[in-house]
């Protein structure tokens, strides 16, 4: 019997899942750190976060290559294939969320020596909490194979979108009423976008998890509509064709 044991597909998939969980944990730990660094104008902390992203990238790369390897060697099909492909897609969504935290840390440098009103700070804090919550929920849905939770992420994201709108309003009034610098105002607006995009990545993760469990994507609904329209068009073409060939007699009722 050969000494080396060939790992089964499911052992490999479990290993991939563990690594994805770890990558996600690194990001959900980093999001509130980024916010803290921003609100405290902590340049040193910003540097630590920016460098810490290298670790994230390393792990993400390792996950990707591991997935390719398993695909090539094990050639999974159906549900197994969907599970592996989902891990690949999640890997890139999570890694991009990590990049967004780096963006927040970099903005700390640009905003150094500015101070913002408590209202502005409060909304940033709130957006950070929501973005973290969404990402965690999306990962829970993935690890539990919970399609219902995955479907709910999109609705949960509404809170974050509303907050972003509130934030833009708060920035405008800070600029108009309190004399907030225009440059600072623009930077803050960009930062709001970062949090909102983290939320969007969580929504994407939710969609991919639904795909993994049910084989359905929102794009399928769109494709179904295209197909339906095509059939309707074809049907009416047939109708007009029949009228022409029948030479004036009315078309039969109930023709498809």
């Amino acid at each position, binding site marked *: 019997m050969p000494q080396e044991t060939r790992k089964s597909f499911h052992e490999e998939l479990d290993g991939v899942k*563990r690594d994805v969980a*770890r990558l*996600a944990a690194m990001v959900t730990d980093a999001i509130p750190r980024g916010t*803290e660094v921003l609100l405290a104008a902590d340049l040193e902390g910003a540097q630590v976060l920016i460098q810490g992203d290298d670790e994230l990238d390393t792990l993400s790369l390792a996950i990707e290559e591991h997935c390719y390897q398993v695909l090539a060697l094990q050639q999974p099909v159906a549900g197994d294939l969907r599970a592996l492909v989902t891990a690949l897609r999640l890997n890139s969504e999570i890694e991009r969320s990590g990049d967004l935290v780096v963006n927040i840390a970099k903005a700390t440098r640009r905003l150094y020596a500015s101070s913002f*009103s*408590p209202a502005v700070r*409060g*909304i940033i804090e709130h957006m950070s909490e929501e973005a973290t919550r969404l990402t965690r929920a999306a990962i829970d849905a993935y690890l539990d194979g919970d399609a219902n939770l995955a479907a709910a992420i999109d609705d949960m994201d509404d809170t974050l979108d509303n907050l972003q709108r509130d934030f833009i309003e708060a920035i405008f009034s800070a600029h108009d009423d309190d004399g907030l610098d225009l440059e600072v105002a623009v930077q803050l607006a960009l930062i709001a976008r970062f949090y909102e995009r983290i939320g969007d990545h969580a929504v994407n993760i939710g969609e991919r998890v639904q795909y993994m469990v049910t084989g359905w994507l929102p794009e399928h609904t769109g494709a179904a509509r295209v197909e339906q329209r095509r059939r309707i068009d074809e049907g009416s073409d047939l109708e007009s064709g029949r009228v022409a060939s029948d030479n004036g007699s009315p078309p039969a009722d109930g023709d498809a």
Partner: protein
Amino acid sequence: MAAFTLGVLVGGVVAALGVTVMRRRREATTSAVLDQVDPPTGGADGNRDLLDRIGRVVDDLVNARTDADVARQRLEEALERLAEGIVVCDSAGQIVFTNRSGAGLSDPRHEDALVAAAVSQALGSALSGTADSRSVDLFGPPARIISVDAQPLGDDQAPTGAVATIIDESRLRRLEAVRSDFVANVSHELKTPIGGLALLAEALSEAGDGEEQQRLAERVLHEAHRVSRVVDDLLALGEIEGDLAPRRERVAVGELLARTRADVAVLAEASAIEVDMAPAGEDLAVVGDVVQLTSALSNLVENAVKYSGGASPVVVRAHPEDRFVRFTVRDRGIGIPRRDLDRVFERFYRVDQARSRITGGTGLGLAIVRNVVQGHGGRVELTSREGEGTTVTVRVPRAVGCAQPDEASGRAPSPQALS
């Protein structure tokens, strides 16, 4: 023929015993078995005697095995129930044992995934013969520091496995931070005004002009008052903490609110902030010390007024809730940053040093509130968001029984807390 069969039987039993014994690596017992089994003496009695002896040896072995099992089970249970997490792996790195505290690391997600990764790395290092110690810094909230320590098992050169211990050091680190900050703060809070007094006194002695003398004298008074307030608060805090027999009387909530309103009246008027206090139910009362409770509530309302930041009123309410009375003090002011929320009850902890200097706070208000409330067997909670405001909720044990004095003795009935 019988002897031959018996011989085979004995041989078989001995062989089986021998295999069993060798599987358990009890060489001592093997020789004990062999010692006890004499060659068959022949005859029915001899055979029965032999079988008896073999039976006893088997019984001994079984008992020894049971004892060892019990001991092992006890040890495993002890490991299982340790507060620290224990993870053991074999020489190939496969996890072979995880106790209950480390169970979250079996299928880890979120923070557990980060700890599990550290454990994995530490075990890997230990397997190569080098003990490994590392800590995982989790932001949370709640912020936690987990330390992971891994040691090789067996031979350092060729370990048979490795064991990792996982310990939550958060509380220890936090206490250290609180203590060192407090020492730094208290010396600052006392030394600064006293230093100021010394300088002013020196300037005063050199000042010629009567007007300048007057101005300097006023400054001296101001600083002296400031130090005095800090010392008063520190003493009050010390008194509350050291209070072995606190007063336990029936205190009408209405009276508590009235006293609080009186205490904060000057400040509220000066800040033009309205304090909205709804009257409490007539019979609503708590058990405790009216002076301490008033002090606690006044501190909360004063904070709310100071940090109200605008035109919105401070809302104070009191409601019965099970066996407590729940007081809430709510403002729509600047709020407290998330990073400070865990620490605001610490003595001398300031969210904003500059602002506290202006408003004349001592930094001890919330510490006093917490000590008074806890001393009364109650609870205090604080929720806040920057830009939206702060709500402090205090629960104090409620007094049961009516307010009418005892008919016979003419004394008020002694209050009992609802329990």
